[in-house]
């Protein structure tokens, strides 16, 4: 069958997609759900999240404190109505997956334990040792197996949304095992495809995180919001980019430069207490820590290695027992991939691309401006993350907004008519002929891997931790030419069954489009805020840029850039204060 009729198509089966699917299946078992993913659900990148998920649980904590940490962490670019709602839902969703069996680490009374994370007043990160995302993903996936209304389409690569009459009516997808192009005729579609860290060369993100869903929505006319904000995580392993969780610092890990000096005290994060205090030193926010690394590097105080400069994360004082209980996975990773045992030696680390704050423009209820289309998780931008996401908010975000997308779909679908199957068929045939063109193209010498390398390089050199008009102009120009050259890209593999050459080509197309939105959004934001730091505009400029960037797709041309005001309810923009001075 080329056309698959369904009520709801969910693209992506990580934490957000599965949460949405379960929410719908629980509420209305008569609705047919097609859960479409380019990988088996348990391969989704949620599994790589380590440190934990934020939700208020301690008596000394409060929703207001979680709100404040999130909004100031995001440098006031968050929509505060959404953040208020998010922090309220957070503990409920974390408790829900506990009831579904998530093996959370426990305190002495048998309650779920919490640990401190960067930028938090009070510790509120729920964790399952240092494999929190893995356990959340498997709990969700296994729980989803009891709902017959969830029909999985594993290893289907979604290519394009089907849009007509001002509404989304489905999606086309390649069944990878046969190479056949299928079309899902759906009343509602939820995109939950994760981020796009792979547009950069050095990232914690898995190979699958290529921004497909973002690009699909973008091509369908939905703006990509705040794409200039890309988070560097301060502690990745050199060479591989493997993440050393923020939990390392939450448990007491220290960052020192080549002189053994806790340099963060020079960047407004002190005083250097012997043990990190909340919101100070090593428990500062990710953007500021990554930027501090860059400054240390400029001063020549980092350590040179064959895989670039590093600083040291020292956890020796934590002792083997605590490390084995709370951080066994990262201990093994550092030992295997670097030959460094954190029990006995400091671990070399450096900033690494980790998270895309920006994404598909959605509101508090996970709705996009396109009727019938919803989005949740890293691919979406609500925005609760503003210009810099608070560590451990993202897993919670997937659960909260995944469920919200499910609820919104149920509200909307009752009055939604069936998708127009004739139109869906037409769209499928059009996509099919585009794919055929790609197959038939004469060899021009442009290869997927070659273009991908060039894209990675220009994003790192022009749109990294620190950017400038000059560097961004160059990146914008390079990406424009890469988009042009992509039209000449040729496939070496002309077969149908699991043609990963084809899939990688389509992923590259998505990545170049997303990269273009990132570079142009960054080029136009003449200020420094959160993760977007400009060498030529070093201050935050609330007068001109306390607003969301909206990048609109304009075919082969560069994107249009518009702006929308940030929603402020109770926290007026102020200076971000970290360190012990005022907290």
């Amino acid at each position, binding site marked *: 069958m080329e056309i698959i009729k369904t009520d709801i198509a969910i693209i992506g089966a990580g934490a957000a997609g599965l949460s949405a699917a379960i929410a719908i299946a629980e509420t209305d078992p008569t609705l047919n759900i097609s859960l479409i993913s380019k*990988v*088996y659900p*348990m*391969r*989704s*990148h949620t*599994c*790589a999240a380590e440190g934990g998920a934020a939700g208020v649980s301690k008596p000394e904590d409060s929703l207001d404190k979680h709100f404040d940490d999130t909004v100031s962490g995001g440098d006031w670019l968050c929509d505060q109505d959404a953040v208020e709602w998010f922090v309220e839902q957070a503990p*409920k969703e974390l*408790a*829900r997956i*506990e*009831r*579904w*069996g998530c*093996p959370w*680490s*426990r305190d*002495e*009374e*048998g*309650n*779920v334990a919490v640990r401190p994370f960067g930028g938090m007043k009070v510790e509120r990160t729920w964790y399952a040792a240092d*494999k929190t995302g*893995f*356990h959340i993903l*498997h709990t969700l996936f*296994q*729980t989803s*197996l*009891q709902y017959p209304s969830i029909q999985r389409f*594993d290893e289907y690569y979604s290519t394009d949304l089907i849009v007509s009459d001002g509404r989304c009516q489905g999606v086309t997808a390649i069944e990878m*095992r046969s190479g056949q192009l299928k079309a899902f005729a759906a009343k509602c579609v939820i995109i939950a495809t994760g981020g796009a860290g792979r547009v950069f060369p050095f990232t914690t993100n*898995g*190979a*699958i995180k290529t921004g497909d869903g973002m690009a699909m929505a973008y091509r369908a006319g939905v703006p990509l919001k705040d794409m200039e904000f890309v988070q560097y995580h301060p502690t990745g392993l050199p*060479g*591989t980019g*493997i*993440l050393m969780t923020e939990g390392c610092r939450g448990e007491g890990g220290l960052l020192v430069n080549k002189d053994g000096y806790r340099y963060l005290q020079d960047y407004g994060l002190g005083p250097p207490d012997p043990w990190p205090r909340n919101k100070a030193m090593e428990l500062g926010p990710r953007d500021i820590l990554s930027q501090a690394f860059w400054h240390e590097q400029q001063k020549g105080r980092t350590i040179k290695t*064959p895989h670039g400069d590093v600083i040291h994360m020292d956890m020796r004082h934590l002792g083997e027992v605590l490390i084995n209980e709370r951080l066994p*996975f990262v201990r093994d*990773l550092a030992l*295997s*991939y670097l030959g460094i045992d954190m029990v006995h030696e400091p671990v070399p680390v450096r900033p690494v691309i980790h998270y895309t704050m920006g994404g598909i423009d959605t509101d508090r209820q996970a709705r996009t401006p396109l009727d019938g289309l919803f989005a949740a998780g890293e691919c979406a931008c609500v925005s609760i993350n503003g210009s810099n996401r608070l560590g451990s908010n993202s897993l919670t975000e997937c659960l909260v907004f995944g469920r919200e997308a499910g609820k919104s779909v149920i509200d909307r679908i009752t009055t939604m008519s069936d998708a127009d199957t004739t139109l869906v068929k037409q769209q499928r045939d059009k996509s099919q002929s585009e794919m055929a063109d790609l197959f038939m193209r004469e060899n021009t010498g442009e*290869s*997927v*891997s070659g273009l991908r390398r060039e894209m990675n390089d220009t994003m790192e050199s022009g749109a990294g931790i620190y950017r400038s008009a000059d560097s961004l102009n160059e990146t914008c120009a390079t990406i424009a030419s890469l988009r042009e050259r992509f039209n000449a890209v040729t*496939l*070496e*593999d002309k*077969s*149908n*069954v*699991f*043609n*990963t*050459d084809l899939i990688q080509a389509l992923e590259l197309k998505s990545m170049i489009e997303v990269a273009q939105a990132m570079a142009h959004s960054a080029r136009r934001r003449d200020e420094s805020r959160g993760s977007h730091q400009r060498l030529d505009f070093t201050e935050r400029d609330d007068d001109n840029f306390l607003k969301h960037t909206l990048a609109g797709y304009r075919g082969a041309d560069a994107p249009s850039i518009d702006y929308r005001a940030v929603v402020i309810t109770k926290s007026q923009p102020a200076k971000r204060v970290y360190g012990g001075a005022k907290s």
Partner: protein
Amino acid sequence: MSERQITLEVLRYRPESESEPVFQSYSVPCQEEWVVLDALNYIKDNLDRTLSYRWSCHMAVCGSCGMVINDNPMLSCKAFLRDLPDHIRVEPLHNFPIERDLMVELDDFMDKLKSVKPYLIPDQPVAEEDGTYRQSSAQLKKYKPFAMCINCMACYSVCPQYGLNEGFVGPAALALAHRYNVDSRDQGRRAREDVVASNTGIWECTFVGACSEVCPKNVDPAAAIQQTKIASTVDYFKDLLMPGKRDKSGNAKQAAGDGA
């Protein structure tokens, strides 16, 4: 960063042009700190774009890249060249149909995973307004090792019973059933017994133990299966000696949960 020339002999199967798999050799300039997956990616990017395999996280947690490397099933992202000779043979996982090159068909496993009801089945679920269950660290420790499975399929690749007996539920799925059976929040063992304690479940296992030897996450499925056998046997005799004495859920918690 020293370079090392490695010969990778990869089993290829292109179902549109071949009726059976053949080995193809690639000579790859490798960095000493690379893993086999890095070498495969080098081939894909520089030598042969038609080679197909699964991978994603490159940090041994997504479970995509399980394959047989010099006769041992392992994660290619954690198969370090420093531990391997200059000539490396890479094959798809055994005991699964090969769909293409290093990609095998997982449908059978996905069905079996579902069949063991791998989700919490509580007698008295905690209500939403009451928050969470209580669970001590000691109770957590008893099932946690069995919750670490990444579904990489190394255990199925090395299990002769799975290869020889079509119906066998297999190590990972049975270990997962055990994971829920010994979770203090779960009372679903009876509900899982139809599949788990059947002739194609735990009783098909002859304790070869290879599954536990190759597991990259130390899940120890062999242990899980033997423990389930004991619990199931205790259940059987309890039923026989004291018919009607079992609680509704059928759980003999002393045997399953507390071990000692």
